[in-house]
């Protein structure tokens, strides 16, 4: 099993999210960076939707109580195995009593950590192992991991280390313009695209809050409607909120844009103080970007399978 010696800022069990219950007010939850989580699982020949540990900011410490293989993807948060630096995007072997630590980083926010065969004893809630921290269910007892928690896994013999190059994180986020943009004053309809936005410290898994110097406050109200991760709302104060995995299922602020699915992974890596910008694309471009990512994952899967077959 894995013992959590130091749980850090917000370390939680996530999978690809909870679907099919939004009409009951149940949020999606799930990993903020699906490409990283899927890659972590693929590196271990796990199914892509196996539960992984999402580490936010870092500052945590784990002990492997049994030998296993594990993978690390997402942001480089200064991970070390027994004090020796290890790289993100790689698979490693851990012996019993090995210690995995994460420092922190200025370049990213979230890292993903998976073990071969996944974590046992994580009971799915509404078909998902994702921790819904707001609602208090899923993952381990519906909460972030705490010091002293243990997560059982099945021991495995050593596999050799392999790594996978994943597409870089960027700060230009591609979006499809939203349905309520026409309700804003003409002068402000392009404002989202014309400047740098600074990520605010009150951003979290529910939403990425951004602000700029220009004033696009307004008094447009809409009837509340279904919202989901990627929706960009513009509250009356003129400071956009990009909704993320833990967002509520309905919202009443004008929807000015929607982040394309392929770019959602970047949002969870932006931390307070950094700048980002938004670029409008069309639905076809969004589809192409998503196809490209799926191809990337399919190729990785084949490469890992081929590699492991050769080495058995």
């Amino acid at each position, binding site marked *: 099993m894995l013992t959590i010696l130091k749980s850090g800022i917000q370390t939680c069990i996530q999978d690809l999210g909870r*679907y*099919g*219950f*939004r*009409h*009951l*007010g*149940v*949020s999606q939850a799930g990993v903020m960076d699906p490409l990283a989580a899927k890659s972590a699982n693929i590196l271990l020949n796990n199914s892509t939707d196996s539960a992984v540990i999402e580490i936010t900011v870092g500052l945590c410490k784990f002990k492997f109580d049994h030998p296993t293989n594990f993978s690390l993807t997402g942001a480089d948060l200064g991970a070390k195995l027994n004090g020796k630096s290890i790289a993100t995007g790689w698979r490693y072997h851990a012996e019993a009593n090995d210690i995995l630590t994460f420092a922190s980083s200025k370049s990213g926010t979230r890292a993903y950590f998976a073990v071969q065969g996944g974590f046992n004893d994580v009971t799915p*809630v*509404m078909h998902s192992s994702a921790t819904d921290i707001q*609602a*208090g*269910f*899923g993952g381990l007892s519906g909460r972030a991991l705490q010091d002293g928690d243990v997560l059982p896994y099945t021991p495995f013999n050593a596999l050799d280390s392999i790594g996978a190059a994943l597409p870089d994180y960027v700060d230009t986020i591609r979006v*499809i313009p*939203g*349905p309520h943009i026409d309700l804003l004053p003409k002068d402000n309809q392009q404002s989202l695209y014309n400047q740098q936005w600074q990520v605010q410290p009150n951003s979290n898994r529910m939403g990425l809050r951004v602000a700029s110097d220009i004033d696009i406050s307004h008094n447009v109200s809409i*009837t*509340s*409607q*279904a919202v*989901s991760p*990627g*929706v960009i709302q513009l509250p009356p104060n003129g400071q956009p909120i990009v909704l993320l995995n833990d967002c*509520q*299922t*309905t919202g009443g602020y004008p*929807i000015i844009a*929607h*982040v*394309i*699915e392929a770019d959602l992974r970047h949002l969870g890596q932006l931390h307070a103080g950094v700048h980002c910008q938004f670029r409008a694309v069309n*639905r076809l471009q*969004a*589809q192409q970007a*998503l196809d490209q990512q799926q191809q990337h994952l399919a190729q990785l899967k084949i490469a890992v399978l081929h590699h492991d077959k050769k080495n058995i």
Partner: protein
Amino acid sequence: MTNNKTYILGERALVLEIFQTHLSQHQQNKLFALHAWMREQKVFIDIVPAKTTITGYLMHSQDPEYWLDRLREAWENIEPEAFQPTVHQIITRYGKSNGPDLDSVASLTGLSPAQVVELHSQQSYQVKFLGFLPGFAYLGDLNPKLHLPRLDTPRTHVPSGSVAIAQDLTAVYPSESPGGWRLIGHTDTVLFNHQLESPSILQPGDVVKFIPSTEGIC
């Protein structure tokens, strides 16, 4: 006579919006009949009704235009009678510690606490949609005599099972949470249990009636 529009939100969300601040019972039932139709198509991973919209999330992002056309056609042709709601009775203890705002609701509306209870419990409500919390059902329409804004200062802890009102709606808090609605009663009925295959008792379109508990009204 077009009083609605359909559009694609992002890559795979299809939205049907009715241009009205308030839906008639006919339109409301038509919307729930459409919800049932959408479920039958087996192409949506999630379908979320809201006050004047319904949003369907396609499982795959291919061909949203095709399904948008189908959705539009279905709305034109669907009969509200196709929708048959489930009816629930919720036993409620009103007032005192169960409903700490009952007295202030009475004084603000110029009614007696007993009249507030009577107005609240004599009619049926429909689940317009769920949101805010898992299993939190927005129930309408509240009798106009009971319409009051939310509390100026929301409570940090509203107990699970609280029966509350705000504006033209009433609701039951399915779990403990912060909240700004006015609390007039309490029920022991468990509305949401995440361990069940069907976790929420109340589904969009269901009909709810509050039954005052015989033990100690007010």
